[in-house]
């Protein structure tokens, strides 16, 4: 997947592809008749941040809970560091988890919460205190040793939970919506703190999230889940630029989707007749999926140009009227009604402070895009 042209992965975060740490083999989990996780197979490499991304009820948390040992797979195997975890109870697994609700012990101080994991190992009091002190310094909570969880802010609680989960120096940390309870600004800052920490400690992270932005920022690889199945695995740029299905294209970011008929299917290019834009879409790369007559063309809003003059091309353009403009600060979103009646979303970066000749409401405009931009999807 990563051989496709795209954004490079973060250098420090480069996972060691030779060292598989977690292996999930055909795991299925049923609750009564409900199939929460459906035959998932997955390998997670040592030292990477793997994000399980999906809407609520897609099975991502159930999969995480099976890794932690709180649920047993109905079928399939989970191997951590080569060892089958089927009969290993949660307290004996080399895994720690950061809970969505943080699950801090309310009757214990910050220090006691963080020390809890070490105390189960019967370490000496001085060693426990020293390691707790170091860990609390890492998460910048050194001054809050004696506080109880209810005396802390949301961000501080999140850091206590993180410190508690990391204190046993696990090789694998499971994070269930780690930033879900924080407000937007704090979330953005904490995302980068998490990445820094992960790089410093060399822990493998498996993060469950429903927030695609969070997944994109944190992950070295993302597994997109839908209805219990993994629908695509890839780097953030793979997932965004080369979605493998309509669901993924739609779930990650926003996208314009046009139904069409495949009229030319060659190894190096494709032509699709799209009534939605009253024209033909030419794509300068072949498509891997089995060609069916009915396909969908997906184009990201930021990859579409908007102009007043008709472009001098015969394909990959469309005429329409500007119906709505939303100014978002860094960019503006245009909703253009094509002559065929379908709505097309276009975003333009606001690079200039005040552009004199900005396109306005009810103007007739031409939309065009590069032949490499569209993605053709069969399903």
């Amino acid at each position, binding site marked *: 997947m990563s051989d496709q042209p795209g954004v490079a992965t973060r250098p420090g975060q480069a996972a060691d592809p030779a060292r598989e740490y977690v292996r999930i083999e055909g795991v299925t989990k049923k609750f009564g008749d409900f199939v929460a996780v459906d035959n998932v197979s997955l390998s997670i490499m040592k030292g990477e941040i793997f994000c399980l991304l999906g809407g609520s009820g897609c099975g991502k948390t159930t999969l995480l809970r099976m890794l*932690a*040992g*709180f649920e047993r797979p109905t079928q399939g195997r989970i191997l951590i560091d080569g060892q089958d975890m089927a009969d290993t*109870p*949660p*307290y*004996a*697994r080399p*895994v*720690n*988890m950061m*809970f969505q*609700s943080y*699950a*801090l*012990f*309310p*009757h214990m101080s910050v220090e006691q919460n963080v020390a*809890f*994991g070490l105390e*189960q*190992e019967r370490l000496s009091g001085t060693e426990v205190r020293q390691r707790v002190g170091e860990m609390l310094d890492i998460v910048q909570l050194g001054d809050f040793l004696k506080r*109880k969880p*209810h005396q802390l802010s949301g961000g501080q609680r999140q850091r206590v939970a993180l410190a*508690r*989960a990391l204190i*046993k120096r696990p090789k694998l940390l499971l994070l269930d919506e780690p930033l879900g309870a924080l407000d937007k600004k704090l979330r953005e800052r904490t995302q980068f703190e998490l990445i820094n920490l992960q790089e410093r400690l060399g822990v493998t992270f498996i993060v469950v999230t429903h927030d695609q932005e969070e997944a994109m920022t944190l992950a070295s690889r993302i597994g997109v889940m839908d209805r219990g199945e993994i629908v695509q695995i890839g780097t953030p740029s793979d997932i965004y630029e080369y979605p493998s299905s309509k669901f993924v294209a739609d779930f990650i970011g926003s996208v314009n989707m046009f139904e069409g008929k495949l009229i030319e299917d060659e190894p190096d290019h494709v032509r699709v007749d799209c009534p939605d834009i009253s024209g033909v879409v030419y794509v300068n790369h072949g498509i891997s999926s089995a060609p069916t007559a009915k396909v969908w063309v997906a184009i990201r809003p930021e990859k579409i140009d908007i102009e007043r003059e008709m472009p001098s091309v015969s394909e990959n353009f469309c005429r329409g009227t500007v119906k709505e403009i939303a100014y978002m600060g860094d960019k503006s979103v245009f909703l253009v009604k094509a002559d065929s009646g379908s709505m097309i979303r276009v975003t333009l970066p606001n690079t200039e402070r005040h552009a004199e000749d900005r396109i306005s409401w009810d103007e007739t405009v031409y939309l065009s895009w590069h032949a490499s931009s569209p993605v053709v999807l069969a399903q």
Partner: protein
Amino acid sequence: MANSLTAGRLNPLYVLLLRYGPPRWSNYIREHWLGQRLVIGIPFVWLLLFFVAPFLIVLKISFSEVQLAMPPYAPLFEWAAETKRLVATFNLDNYLFLLTDDLYVRTFSYSVKVAAISTLFCLLIGYPMAYAIARSSPTMRSVWLMLIILPFWTSFLLRVYAWVGLLKTDGLINQALMGVGLINEPLTLLYTDFAVYIGIVYSYLPFMILPLYANLEKHDLTLLEAAADLGAKPIKAFLTITLPLSIPGIVAGSLLVFIPAVGEYVIPSLLGSSDQLMIGRVLSDEFFSNRDWPVASSVAIAILLLLVLPIVLFQRFQNRELAGQK
């Protein structure tokens, strides 16, 4: 209707009503804090009339002297006609008597012992029950709770009498044990300490289970998952997480059992031996048999003081607990 009002001279109140709408009593009440005072006032008056006033009367009698009269005690305040003064005679003899006659100290310490041991057994039996109910499915939970509360539908006295039928020499338990052949002679079960403990534990068990259940049911089970995740085995997780978090429930349940058990009158009278008296029995004997109201009153005051202490402690504990939750 409205026409008859508006006909002829307009009623000035009606004009005001038309202009401003109905009077806003809620605003008036809000401004004058009436609602708050009313809400506090009703239980306040209730306690004043039915707790503080009787208590003061009992307190007054406890400083008095026995008299063959109606009522059977000397008045505390007397108008001395010659000196034209109000004479108050405070008599501490009753309290001294409680300390000198070892009957009272003995029965009181016996009562505390019985109550403490009964409370311990209620806790040991009630905690697992409350835990099991709190962890069962929501539908089963209401069934179990119903079963816990069910005995209250029968009179308390009747249930204690039922134990007499079970425990007596030719009672059901002895008959069953002899029928099976475990014993040849009937056991002496009734009129023993054992019978008193059984009676108290049986009667007060729901008061232990209900507050414990209310506490355990609120526990966040992900805390136990977190403990397991950090390496604590189930028993360790119970001891370090569940047990400390259930202390408020343990304290509430224990006080609800201990305090009434100390003053318990019916159970030891019906099931206990006649030479091991509990303080409640002594009090009632002083009052009804000896007609010594002052000594009975001083016994009542003494019990109250010795029981007020745990109540106050409990209150402080609860306040601290409430302050601890967000």
